C-alpha cells in the first residue's frame, strides 16, 4: 500500500514537473549562440519592459486593492454591502477582453479620440494608448481584486483590540491604519502583489494589443515568426527564472513576518459610518472603479454583440460559433475532470505523508499555476516534440503522435491548473479529521462505508469547486491553447483573441461575452464561500 502510494506520488510529480524541467534546462547550459542573437535583437528592451510593467501593475494593484479593501472594511457608506463583493467582479473579465475594449474605446479610431478631435481640432494632443502606460492601467483594473481580496481577509483577521489600543495611545484612525493595520497585513499584501506580478508575466495578448514587448510576447513572437523552439525555450527559461525569483522573494518576505492573531470570538473592527460628502465620495470611488473595470466594458460588449447580430456585413466566423462553443466546453470539461482526478489522487496520497520529501514533491507538482503560461506551453511543446522524435527515431510510430494532439493539450492544462484543483481538494480533505474516521470505525463502519458516508460527502463540495475553477480558467486560457491546440481546434478565447488582434471589435464581443459570463461563476462561488476561501 505504501509502495503504491509512493509510486503514484512520485510518478505524478514527475509527469507534472517534466515540462518545467525542459524549460529549466537552458538555465543550466545556456546556448551562447541563441543568446547572442536574442541580445542583438530586443532582449534588453523585453527585459526592461517586462520588469517595468510587472512593477507598475504590482504597485497599481497594491494601491487600488488595499485602499478599496480598507474603505469597505473600516467605513460604512451607501451601497457598501453590495459593493464589497461586486468589487471582485473585474476578475471575471480576462485581461485581453478588457484590453481590446479599452483599445476600441480610446484608440485613434475610437469614439473618445474622435470626439476629442472634434472639440480640439485634428492635431490636439492625446496620450498614446498603445503604450506600457495603457497596458498597465488595463492590467491594474483587471487584477486589483487579488490584492483587494487578500487585504480584506487580512483586515478582517485583525482584532479590533490592537486597533483600539493604538487609538487609545493617541493615534488618529488614519495613522493607526498606516502604522498598525498595514504592517500587520503586509504578508497578505505581498502575496497578492506577487500573484498580480506573476499574472503580468503570463499575459501576452493584452500587451500585444498595447504594443508592449514583454518576454511572454517575445516567446510568442519567436515561436510564431520562426517556429524556433530552441530560441523560444531559452527565452522561456529567463521568464521561468524571473517567475521563480518572484515566488522565492515572496516566500522569504512571508517567512520572516508571520503575524498570528487570535481567531474565533475575537472582536472585529467595527466600521464607522461616513457622513455627507465623504459617504458620497466613498460610494462614488467604488462605483467608478467597478464601472470602468467591469460594468461599462460589459455594457460595451453587449452593445457590440447586439449591433453585430443586427448587422452581419462584418466578416466573422459566425457559422461556426456553435462549433467553438462545443470545442471550448468539451475541452474545459475534460481538462477540469482530469485535473480534479489527479488532484484527488495527489491529495489523498500526500495526506499519509509527513516527510519533507513528499511535501516538497507536491509543491513542485503544483508549481505550474504560479509560472507564466508561455513557460508551460513552451516546456510542454519541447517535451512532446522530444518524445515524438524518440519514438520516430526508434521506429515505434510512423508519425508525430503527441505534438499538436488533444492529449498534449490536456496534459499542458493539467500542468498549468493542477494547483487550483489541488488546493481546494486538500482544503476539503482537511475537514475529514482523524477523529471522524475513528468515530466511524468505532461505530462499526468498514473502509468502504467510511469512504462512502464520510469522505465522499465532505470532499465533494471542494472537489466540485476545483472542477468549476479549472473549467472556467481553461475557457479563458490563451497562451497554452494557442501553442498546443490541435489543428483547427479553436476555443472561444482563441476566437476572441484572433478577431480582436485584427480589430474586429464587434465580432470579438460575442465570444468575449460568453467568457465573461462563465467567469462570473467562480466569482460568485468565491463570494459565497465568504472570506474563508482565498482564491488559490
Amino acid at each position: 500500500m505504501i509502495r503504491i502510494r509512493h509510486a503514484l506520488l512520485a510518478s505524478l510529480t514527475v509527469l507534472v514537473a517534466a515540462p518545467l524541467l525542459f524549460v529549466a534546462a537552458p538555465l543550466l547550459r545556456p546556448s551562447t549562440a541563441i543568446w547572442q542573437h536574442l541580445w542583438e535583437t530586443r532582449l534588453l528592451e523585453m527585459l526592461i519592459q517586462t520588469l517595468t510593467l510587472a512593477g507598475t501593475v504590482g504597485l497599481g494593484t497594491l494601491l487600488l486593492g488595499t485602499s478599496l479593501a480598507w474603505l469597505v472594511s473600516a467605513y460604512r457608506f451607501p451601497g457598501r454591502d453590495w459593493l464589497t463583493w461586486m468589487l471582485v467582479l473585474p476578475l471575471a473579465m480576462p485581461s485581453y477582453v478588457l484590453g481590446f475594449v479599452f483599445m476600441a474605446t480610446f484608440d485613434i479610431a475610437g469614439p473618445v479620440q474622435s470626439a476629442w478631435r472634434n472639440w480640439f481640432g485634428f492635431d490636439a494632443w492625446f496620450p498614446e494608448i498603445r503604450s506600457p502606460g495603457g497596458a498597465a492601467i488595463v492590467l491594474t483594473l483587471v487584477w486589483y481584486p487579488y490584492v483587494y481580496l487578500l487585504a480584506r481577509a487580512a483586515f478582517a483577521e485583525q482584532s479590533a483590540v490592537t486597533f483600539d489600543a493604538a487609538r487609545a495611545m493617541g493615534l488618529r484612525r488614519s495613522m493607526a491604519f498606516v502604522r498598525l493595520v498595514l504592517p500587520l497585513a503586509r504578508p497578505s499584501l505581498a502575496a497578492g502583489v506577487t500573484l498580480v506580478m506573476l499574472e503580468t508575466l503570463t499575459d501576452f495578448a493584452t500587451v500585444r494589443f498595447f504594443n508592449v514587448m514583454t518576454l511572454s510576447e517575445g516567446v510568442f513572437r519567436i515561436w510564431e515568426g520562426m517556429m524556433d523552439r530552441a530560441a523560444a525555450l531559452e527565452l522561456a527559461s529567463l521568464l521561468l527564472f524571473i517567475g521563480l525569483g518572484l515566488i522565492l522573494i515572496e516566500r522569504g518576505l512571508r517567512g520572516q513576518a508571520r503575524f498570528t492573531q487570535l481567531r474565533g470570538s475575537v472582536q472585529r473592527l467595527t466600521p464607522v459610518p461616513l457622513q455627507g460628502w465623504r459617504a458620497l465620495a466613498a460610494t462614488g470611488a467604488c462605483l467608478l472603479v467597478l464601472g470602468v473595470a467591469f460594468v461599462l466594458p460589459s455594457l460595451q460588449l453587449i452593445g457590440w454583440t447586439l449591433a453585430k447580430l443586427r448587422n452581419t456585413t462584418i466578416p466573422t466566423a459566425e457559422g461556426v460559433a456553435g462549433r467553438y462553443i462545443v470545442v471550448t466546453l468539451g475541452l474545459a470539461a475534460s481538462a477540469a475532470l482530469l485535473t480534479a482526478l489527479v488532484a484527488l489522487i495527489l491529495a489523498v496520497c500526500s495526506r499519509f505523508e509527513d516527510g519533507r520529501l513528499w511535501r516538497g514533491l507536491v509543491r513542485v507538482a503544483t508549481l505550474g499555476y504560479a509560472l507564466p503560461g508561455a513557460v508551460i506551453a513552451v516546456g510542454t511543446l519541447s517535451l512532446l516534440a522530444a518524445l515524438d522524435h524518440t519514438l520516430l527515431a526508434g521506429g515505434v510510430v510512423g508519425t508525430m503522435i503527441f505534438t499538436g494532439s488533444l492529449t498534449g493539450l490536456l496534459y499542458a492544462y493539467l500542468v498549468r491548473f493542477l494547483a487550483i484543483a489541488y488546493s481546494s481538494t486538500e482544503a476539503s480533505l482537511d475537514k475529514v479529521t482523524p477523529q471522524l474516521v475513528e468515530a466511524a470505525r468505532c461505530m462499526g463502519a468498514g473502509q468502504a462505508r467510511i469512504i462512502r458516508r464520510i469522505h465522499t460527502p465532505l470532499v465533494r463540495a471542494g472537489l466540485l469547486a476545483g472542477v468549476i475553477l479549472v473549467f472556467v480558467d481553461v475557457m479563458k486560457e490563451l497562451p497554452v491553447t494557442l501553442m498546443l491546440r490541435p489543428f483547427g481546434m479553436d476555443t472561444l478565447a482563441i476566437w476572441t483573441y484572433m478577431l480582436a488582434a485584427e480589430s474586429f471589435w464587434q465580432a470579438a464581443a460575442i465570444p468575449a461575452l460568453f467568457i465573461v459570463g462563465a467567469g462570473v461563476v467562480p466569482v460568485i462561488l468565491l463570494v459565497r464561500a465568504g472570506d474563508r476561501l482565498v482564491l488559490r
Partner: protein
Amino acid sequence: MSLAITLSGVRKTYDGGVAAVDGVDLTATEGALVALLGPSGCGKTTTLRLVAGLERPDSGVITICGHTVADTTTWVPPEQRQVGLVFQDGALFPHLTVAENISFALTRTTRAGRTQRIAELLDLVGLNGLAARYPHQLSGGQQQRVALARALASRPAVVLLDEPFANLDAALRVELREEVARILRSAGTTAVLVTHDQQEALSMADQVALMVDGRIVQCGTPQQLYTHPSSRAVANLLGETNWIPGEASGMTASSCLGTLCLTAPVSGSVDVLVRPEQLILHPDEAAPWTVTQVRYFGHDQIVTVSADGLPSLRARLGTHEPIVAGLRVAVAVHGRVSAFAR
C-alpha cells in the same frame, strides 16, 4: 459480577522509543464507571485507544466481555469491537443531522426500529426535538450529549469517554458530569472515562485508576484513593495537602498537632498527610498558631495559619465561623490520617 474489560501487562511504545503505556493492568466490572485519572501525557488516552482498537499494543492482553480482542496473535479491529467512543470535541459528522449521526451505527436495524431508537436516545440525553439539527447548530454541551447518544446507539458493551468535558466552560461541565453519569448508569453500560480533572474522577466514578508515566499507580474507589493514598504522589494528585513531620509508632503518630490516629500502622519518622478539611480551628489567646490569610469563597474559606518554627497549614472551613487575619487559634485534626515513612 463479570468483568467487562481487562487489560494485563499492556505496553505501547511510539516511534522514538517512549513507552506511552508501560505495562498496564486494569479491570472494569460490568456496569461500572471507571475513571482513568492522570496528568497530561501520562498515557491515559493511549490506554483508551488501545481498548477501542485504534492502537495496537506491543504486548499484553486486552479482553472485552470475555473475548480476547488483542494479544500476541489476536487483533480485532475497532469496527468489530462493539465499543462506543466519545471524543473530547465530540467528532460529530458535520454533514449529518443529529438523527443521522446517532443512527450511523444502526445499519442492521429496520427503519422503524431506527426511528424508535433515535427517539429513545434523544429522550435519554435530553435533546428531544433537535433530531433534524446539524452539529454546527448545537451548543458545545448539546454536541457532547449527541456524541454520547451516538456512542450508546448500538447498545455497546463498553463506552469509552476521552476528556468529554474538557472543551466546555466550568458551570456547564459540572452540570453535564452529573447528567452523563446518570445516563451511563441508566443505560447500564460499562464506561471508562479518561480525565485529568480529579474532581471529575472522584465525583463520577465507581472506580478510579490513577495513572502516572504510563503506569497505573493506584486503583480503587474514590474514597479509598482519597483517604488511603498509596504514595505521596497519589495524595498530591488527588487534592490539597498539608504535610506534617511526626514520629509514628503503631496506629498513632506524635506531631506538632498532638497525637494523630493513623489509617495504617507505621513506625519511625514520618510525614503525615492532613487534608485541609480535616483541620479544626478554635479561637484561643494562648495557642501558638496565628491566622495569616483568609481566602473567602462563599461556600467555604481557606484559612492559612502559621506558628514559629512550624510549617504553615491550610485549613478549609465553613463560612459561618468568623475568622480574621491576626486571630490566635488552636489547631486540631478531625479523623484518621495517612503517614508515609520519611
